[in-house]
């Protein structure tokens, strides 16, 4: 699931085979397999595509197509901390836009990127369903509402030490 605290480890064939076996018999198993692989390895290595395709009797192009369609599936490791700032209308209405610049400055990396040391990834998310608690953010899977510039600072300094 989204930002389940994950390590970003090199992909391991035995572990991947176990994940495939766990879901192989389900109808429409590709998404559940990719979710579990994300949780296990933190990202989806291109080298995982052929074994998944073979196990599900799909073409590599089909698996690649799914992998690249959905925003959740990373094809490169994320930072050790993942900061998602809500960019949708309700959070914009409550001052979310100004938090973007503040987060970029504090974390030293522009929106949508991972910093050079791989410490932190900053990216937008379109709605966490916290529209009445706007502006909102998710940091390593933990949610934070009613953010003010000061509260954002506190949340970020606790997350990125």
């Amino acid at each position, binding site marked *: *699931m*989204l930002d*389940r605290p994950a390590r970003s480890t090199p992909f391991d064939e035995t572990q991947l085979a176990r994940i495939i076996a766990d879901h192989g018999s389900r*109808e*429409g*198993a*590709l*998404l*559940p397999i*990719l*979710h579990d692989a994300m949780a296990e390895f933190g990202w989806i290595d291109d080298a995982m595509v052929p074994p998944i395709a073979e196990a*599900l009797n799909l073409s590599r192009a*089909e698996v690649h*197509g*799914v992998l690249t*369609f*959905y*925003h*959740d*599936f990373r094809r490169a490791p994320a930072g050790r901390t993942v900061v998602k700032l809500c960019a*949708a*209308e*309700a*959070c*914009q*209405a*409550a001052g979310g836009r100004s938090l973007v610049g503040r987060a970029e400055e504090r974390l030293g990396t522009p929106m949508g990127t991972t910093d050079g040391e791989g410490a932190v990834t900053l990216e937008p*998310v*379109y*709605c*966490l*369903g*916290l*529209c*009445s*608690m*706007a502006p*909102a953010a*998710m940091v390593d*899977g933990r*949610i*934070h*509402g*009613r953010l003010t510039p000061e509260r954002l600072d506190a949340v970020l300094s606790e997350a990125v030490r």
Partner: protein
Amino acid sequence: MSLRIFVPGDAAAVSVGADEIADRLAASARERGLSVEIVRNGSRGAHFLEPLLEVETSKGRIGYGPVAPRDVDGLVEAGFFEGGDHALRIGRPEEHPFLKNQTRSTFAFCGVVDPRSESDYAAHGGWLGLKAALAQSQEDRVKTVSASGLRGRGGAGFPTGIKWDTVRRAEADRKYIVCNADEGDSGTFADRMLMEGDPFRLVEGMAIAGISVGATFGYVYIRSEYPHAVAAMERAVEGARLAGWLGTDIGGSGLAFDMEVRVGAGAYVCGEETSLLNSLEGKRGIVRAKPPLPAIHGLFGRPTAVNNVLSLAAVPAIFSEGPEAYERLGLGRSRGTMPVQLAGNVRFGGLYEVPFGITLGELVNEIGGGTASGRPVRAVQVGGPLGAYFPPHLFDTPFDYEEFTKRDGLIGHGGITVFDDTVDMAHMARFAMEFCSVESCGKCTPCRIGAVRGVETVDRILAAREEGRAAKAELTLLADLCDTMKFGSLCALGGFTPYPVMSAMTHFPEDFDLSAGRLPAGLQAAE
């Protein structure tokens, strides 16, 4: 017996410290040698009071809110465990004006029951709808839903009874119920709240849907941005199965229905029913052309009833209390209640369930209390990113599917996002196009290319504004582009993106063309 304390586990409460509060309360009770049971209930929807703590006393549940973690020690000293007095004490939550004036049907138990406990759900009157449905014939079940006047709460407003009857009549070896829990609209959170606060109701609604159309299996497809809702639904499915309400012999009826939770992967377009079906099948979430309708040719090619969370969650009460009770509420062809969600820059944000017919102005100014910033309301977007922006002079519009259509708007999923007078509507129009370009599935040209051209055109309008030039030609082009997207797109993403763009241009022209004047004062103040 131990003392029961309620600390919402709803994401809205958790986002402002509810987990920490629960920990501190538990520690405090231990220090005092008190035996307490901390129930992580859902939210009652008064989000401006979250975290809203409650303690069970001889006089009923007494609420305190909004409580910050640092308030806990003071609360305990003031006698929280006995319902004692404190500045944050609100008395019985049901008596609070925000809750007292609602007509709660779908959300009747939300915030009240323990969402982790099947037996608590049953003790509050859960499963009565399913029991009533089991006593009817398959055909009568569909008639009951038709008689209630229920229309799909996901946005399109299609009569649920007609959809169910189509699936019921379709012949196939297997049929499916799919619950669309991919609530991606900004300003909406009703599905999330229901799944976190009263998940068994959705299970019950899906089981009734299953036995009404002849489906033996269901999927609830939840967006990955809602991890708390996913966990709550997974627990509820397990709990319902253990209690015999799911499985091969539901409620001892001999009828079979089971279900499974599936998680999306971050694609707004998967809230569109045909994209969702592709995604469930493990494919790219690309829109399918209709016909064939999913009711005839849906998931894995089988007849499928795709319903929204709120539609399915409305069903148990329709069966337990009778369709007439539900049908009596509402206005025109919009029957029953709508859980309205007040969001954005609003003073009293949260979920407010009312019969259709209340005006937009009452919702925004009276119930919502205007803006949180205290500045004048300038615009409200109703119905998510694809909904129109309404200015205050249209606040007399009644909340009703047809009344909103008449004014070139839509109520969608019932979300209302409030903006004060510092909002830049040209900017919001650009955002609508940008969102569409990011989230387009790419299947049809008007949406895929149109949204990109839309962003470019608004950028040229903004550049002209910056230099004080007239942007008349670009505005004509943008209107023309919106027309192409509206009528040429395959699904609502491309087809409805023109609503926010055109409404912004129509109602707030002063933000788009400065050749005749200056930016409004509020907007200048923001710059």
